Every structure is written in C-alpha cells, then in structure tokens.
C-alpha cells in the first residue's frame, strides 16, 4: 500500500532534485535507500496482516495433517512395551527356522511383568493382531499368567506351556519385524502388501481390498466427472450464449443446488431413488416397469453416480461458464462467413477455446469426488463406496488408526498431485466462487 512517504518519493518529476547524479528525497536520503526501506516496510506490513491466519491454519489444520503423516509410520509401541525383548531379539536370526533361545524368553518375562502391571501388554497385542491374527489373545493370556511363572525353571518351556504360539517361529518373526520405531507396515497394508521373511509381497488374493477400492474410487470419480462434463457443457454453453438478463435468471437454477446443503440433496436422492420412491412409483404408473420389477437405483453404484453427479454438477458448470463467457462470438461468425458449417465452426473454432474450462472443471470435480464420504456412505450400499468410507471405518470401528492414516496419506498425495496440475492449468488465484 502507498504511504505519504512513498508518495513523495514517487513525486520527483514535479520536483527536480538539486543533485542530478544521486536522486534523493526531500530530507536528503538517497532515493534508492528510501525506496528499499519503503518496500521492506510494505513487506513487513503484508506479513503482519497475514501472520495471524497463517499461524491459525498451521495450528488448527496443518499440524493435524502432519500428525497424520506421523501416525502412518509411527510404531513405538513394541519397543516401548517390550524394550528388553527387542534388544535381546536383535541377535536372533529370523531365518534360522527356530524360535529364539532362553535369554529372549527371560527378557520377555521381565518386560511382560512390567507391561501387565501397567496393562499395556493387551494394547500391544491389539497392535500386533493387525499384522497377525491371534496375537491379541496370545498377549492377553500370557500377561495374565506372567507373574505366576517359576523363576527357577526355564522360561521358554513355561511360555510354550501357556501357548504353543510362543514356540512358533512366525510369532517371533512378526515381533522382530515390527520392533523398529518406524514402520512401513501400515503403508504396505494400505496397498494390499505385507512384509514376510522373503521381503515384501502381495497379500493372498482373498484379502486384497485397498487397491481394488482405490481403483474403484478412481473409476467412479472418472465416471462422475464424465457425467458432469456431459451435462455441464451444454448448460454452460447456453448460459454463455443467452442475453445477460435470461442467463442470470437461469443461473439461479445452477446456484440454488450449489448453495443447498449436501445432506438435503442426498436425502432428496434417497427419497427419489428407493424402490418405493417417487421415480419408481412414476415408472410403475406409466407402465414402463411392472410393480414387481421396480428398479434398484440406490445402495449401489448407480445411486452414487446419480447423486454425486447432481451434487458436483455446479462445480463443472461455473468454471466452464466463466471461460465461455470470455470467448468472443466473432470467431465463430468469421468461421461461418468463410464457409464453415455449424459443426465445423463449433468443433474447430469454439470448442478448442473452451478446453481450459473443461480442464479446470474436470479436475475440480475429480478432486472433490475422490474424497467424498457422506454421499457414498448413504446411497452407495456395498458396491458404491469409496476409499474414504474405509478410512472412516478404520478410525471409528476397527481402531486401526495407523492404517487409516496411511490410506489418508495416499489419498492426500493423489489430491495434491491433481491440484498441482490444476494450479498449472488454472492457477490457484483464479478460483472463483458463486
């Protein structure tokens, strides 16, 4: 912003300097210095204005995202709960095919005594159970009996006596593999892979779900994007071509859905699409379908696609419209006067000019749609759900927060990549609302 100081600095033409070789302001400071000072002051003021919000966003928003990144690799629980065992296990060769020897079991006993006292052993069991089924009860059972063990007898035999799994190499391999403070285990899980002694490999086929869900999320988002483009393009074209008065009126039909609550629109579709709903009733009434043959349009992919296309359509129309509005009609007229048919004029002259709008709208719709949770949850059934629904499941039902965080990070990476593309095409500054 301009201050009186810089005004006088910017005024020299009216007030010629006394010394022609060095420009100075009225008080004798060289102009260069004065300008630099003014610039620095301006920068400081801008930063001061921005600082409160920046701090606020960093604390309330960026820190949580960073925390999520951390949770997706954090794995201190094993080393914290069983510190001595982890140390003793360092010498054990996991490929030896034999369970570790007495010192490791003695360390485990010492660790478990403390852990059982603090009730952290069952927590560790739940954590390791994500990697290998049965760990949960193994730790619960063993923790209960740890203080009743006979110190005079070998621990190994006593542990195996409690549960055969302690004599199983696989148990120890899992324990050793997940003893480091940081793990890639959650990320591997998030892409249907697992760590084995032979290295990283895909999970058995009947346990693979995340890659499939990621693929479906992409597929459904692309379909929704295509539907939005198909429906949005003619509307934007019409709005841009009509006289301002009419197009402003019609614009309300686009803006009203845009401003209406997501849940209102989702409930509307739930009401319309169900088997005893308005659309089916209408179809039965017209005789297009029989009463027994009512269409199943909800709790499947069809439901998700229809509802989300409706919800995201304004996000396609608005950027398209703002691009089309700037295209001068004279180009098409010129093409036609040179003998082009309507189609050629549109396809060769008009359409190429709308490509930036198509790019902007499509990426916007795509970004919004791959992160959707509410609508798929309510109308998606089992075949129309997204990866977000699985993230929510792991946060609130299975409590596998590490996996939820890893899935979230992958999704976030995809969105940021897309957004980078969006920024290259449109620029963040050009985001317009309403």
């Amino acid at each position, binding site marked *: 912003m301009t201050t009186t100081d810089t005004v006088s600095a910017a005024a020299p033409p009216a007030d010629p300097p006394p010394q022609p070789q060095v420009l100075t302001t009225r008080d004798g400071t060289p102009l260069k210095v004065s300008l630099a000072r003014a610039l620095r002051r301006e920068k400081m003021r801008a930063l001061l204005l921005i600082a409160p919000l920046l701090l606020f966003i960093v604390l309330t928003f960026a820190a949580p995202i960073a925390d999520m990144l951390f949770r997706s690799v954090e794995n201190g629980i094993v080393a914290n709960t069983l510190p001595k065992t982890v140390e003793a296990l360092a010498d054990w060769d996991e490929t030896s095919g034999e369970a570790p020897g007495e010192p490791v079991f003695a360390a485990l006993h010492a660790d478990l005594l403390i852990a059982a006292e603090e009730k952290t052993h*069952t927590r560790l069991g739940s954590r390791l159970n994500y990697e290998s*089924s*049965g760990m949960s009860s193994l730790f619960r059972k063993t923790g209960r009996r740890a203080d009743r063990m006979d110190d005079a007898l070998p621990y190994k035999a006593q542990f195996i006596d409690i549960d055969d799994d302690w004599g199983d190499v696989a148990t120890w391999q899992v324990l050793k593999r997940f003893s480091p403070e940081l793990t890639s285990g959650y990320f591997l899980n998030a892409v249907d892979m697992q760590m084995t002694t032979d290295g990283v490999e895909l999970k058995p086929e009947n*346990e693979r779900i995340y890659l499939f869900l990621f693929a479906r999320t992409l597929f459904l988002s692309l379909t929704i994007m295509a539907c939005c483009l198909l429906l949005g393009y003619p509307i934007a074209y019409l709005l841009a071509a009509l006289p301002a008065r009419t197009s402003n009126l019609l614009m309300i039909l686009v803006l009203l859905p845009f401003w209406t609550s997501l849940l209102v629109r989702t409930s509307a579709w739930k009401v319309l699409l169900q088997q005893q709903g308005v659309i089916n009733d209408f179809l039965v009434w017209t005789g297009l379908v029989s009463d027994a043959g009512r269409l199943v349009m909800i709790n499947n992919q069809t439901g998700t696609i229809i509802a989300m296309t409706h919800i995201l359509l304004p996000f396609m129309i608005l950027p398209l419209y703002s691009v089309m509005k700037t295209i001068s009609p004279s180009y098409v007229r010129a093409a036609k006067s040179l003998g082009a048919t309507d189609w050629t004029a549109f396809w060769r002259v008009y359409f190429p000019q709308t490509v930036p709008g198509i790019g902007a709208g499509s990426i916007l719709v795509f970004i919004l749609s791959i992160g959707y949770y509410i609508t798929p949850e309510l109308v998606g059934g*089992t075949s129309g759900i997204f990866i977000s629904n699985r993230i929510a499941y792991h946060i609130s039902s299975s*409590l596998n927060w590490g996996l939820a965080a890893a899935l979230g990070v992958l999704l976030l990476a995809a969105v940021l990549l897309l957004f980078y593309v969006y920024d290259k095409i449109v620029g963040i500054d050009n985001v317009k609302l309403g």
Partner: protein
Amino acid sequence: MTFKTLLLASAATAMMTTGANAIDLTIVSWGGAYSNSQNEAYHKPYMAENPDVTIINDESSNEAVAKLRAMNEAGNVTWDLVDVLASDAIRLCDEGLAMEIDHDEMLAPAPDGTPASKDFGDLIVSDCYIPQIVYSTTFGYRTDVEAWNGKEPDDICDVFDLEAFPGKRALEKRPINNMEWALLCDGVAKEDVYDMLETEEGVNRALAKLGTIKDQTVWWSAGAETPQLLADGEVVMGSTYNGRLFSLIEEQDQPVKMLWDAQVFDLDGWIVPAGLPKERLDAVMKYLRFATDTQRLADQAKYISYGPARDSSAPLVGKHAELGIEMAPHMPTDPANAKNTFLFNYEWWADYRDDLDAKFQAWLAS
C-alpha cells in the same frame, strides 16, 4: 485482540456447556428405546433416591470405543459410565481404556446372598465388564409372502433356501454372525464352527455359502434398518436385534414373525472408563451397585424385550409397562425361544476380527 477475546469467549461457552458439578454423572448409552428403558428402570429411581445426583445422557455408544481412545490420549475423560457390547468391552479392556472390576466387592449380591460373580456367571466375559442384558441377533420374516405358498421359515438354513423362500434378505454388513450361520448351514457341527473358520477352507466355505444369496441380500449397518426394510416390504426376511423386532411386531403391529432358530446371544453392559478421579469414581460405583442389582435388571425388561443378565432377575420379569403383555415369552432366553441357540465366541472374534473383516469386505466388494 479480537482473536483473543473470541478464544476466551468460546472457551467460556465450552466450559458452561460441559459443566463441572461433582455429582453430575455422564452416562453414555445407545439412545432410542434402549436408553429409555434404562432411564425408566435405573436413572429415574436413582435420582429420586439421590436428589443431589443429576444424570446426563450421552448417546454415543456407537462410537464409544474410538471416542474413549481419543479422550484417553488427551488424558481428559469426560464420561463416567459407558454402555457397550461385550466385544467392545473386551477391546476397551485390552486397550487399557476400561477399569477392571471386582464384581463381588463392587456389586450387590443376589437377594439370597449369591455373590454377584456367581449370579452373572459366564456372562462376565471380561474383567472390566458388568453385563446388563442378554439380547440376540436373530431373523424376522414377513408372514404375507405369496411366493412362499403358506410355508413359514422355521430353520436358520431357510435363510439360504431361495427355492422355498424366494425374496430379498437383510444381513449385517460384517462377518460376525453371518459366517457362523453360513457354516452351520453348510453342514458344519455347531461346536466345530470356530475351528473351521480359523482355516482358509472354512472361510472360503462360509463365503461360498453366503455367495448363494449374495445378489438377493441388502446389507445393513444400523440395527434400525432391518425393521424398516421389513415394514416397507423391501426384504422378506432379515437379521437384527430381537428387541427391534419385538417393537416392530408388538408395538407397530406389522405382519412379521420371529425366527428364533440359531439366534446368537450377545451381551450389553457397563464399563467404567479407566483413570477416573476418586470422587467421580465413588459416585459411579454407588450408582452401579444400585443399577445392576437383581430388581433393577428385572425392571428393565418391562420396557424392552431383552433378558436380564443376572440369574436371580429372571423370575422377577413381569409385564410390559405400556402394552401389558407378559414379557417372559419374548425374552431370547425363554426356553421356548432358546431351543437352538448359538454361542458367540468373543475371544475368538477379538483375534480374528481384523483378518476376517478384510476378507469379508474384499468378498463383498468383488
């Protein structure tokens, strides 16, 4: 400045809404008819006896496990008593989020002096758990399906019989119960079901059996969905909690009947969050001793058709508070209904839940 005053103002409002009175008890439960039964049978009489106590109902049992974990991480537990299912109680106990209970010392004995641990018996499935009721997950079916030619299902395997009983089914969107039922109907003996499910073959068999009705199944995630689907005629049979079906049949008069065969018993009860300060803990324990005694548990059955968890409460179950019908025949534990029941293995599910859930969801999605 504005920011600061704003923060202060919002903090003040937040404090006003949470309140900090020493004798406020925040009790978390499921809401709806179930909370109502607790309110009538436990909360109201307790507050009448102890006018200094105010009970605040929080209907968050659905997300209790996740929220308790979040509160525990923050070291700021605002709940005093939480109503959860047995499997969640085991999980909370494992995670160190629930307090261990000495049942005999902390709870009232039966009227004849039997200690509480004996009176509850096997239902104490976790050291942290105080069971209240036994409910079951079972099937309801419509009685007016023409395609069934007057037949009615009376066997769990009729659920898998699309020839004799065509129509849509509603099943819960999770492996628990469904896998067991599928194996039972695939010829596995009741006592072998869990051993079988531990194997790859068992899982595949169960999923294959479920696969025979997959395209005729609506998958539900909230207990209220099945009654709604049955009432709307969108499904002809479906699994849900027996209390939901009771209210559909007796209170809403819908043409629906219960299929009690191979009902799976489950428990609902209390846990006390770990780490409560002394004075709050004392207030909670005083309430708990009252609310889990023989008479109170029997009283609850007046309002909802779930069986009391104490042996000594069973003979005291009376009539429904509004409908005036005898409640005993509607209890899942009634001998006529419990001819063939399936025992749910909590420990087993605690171990295999994550693994089977991944397999089940993968199967469901494919």
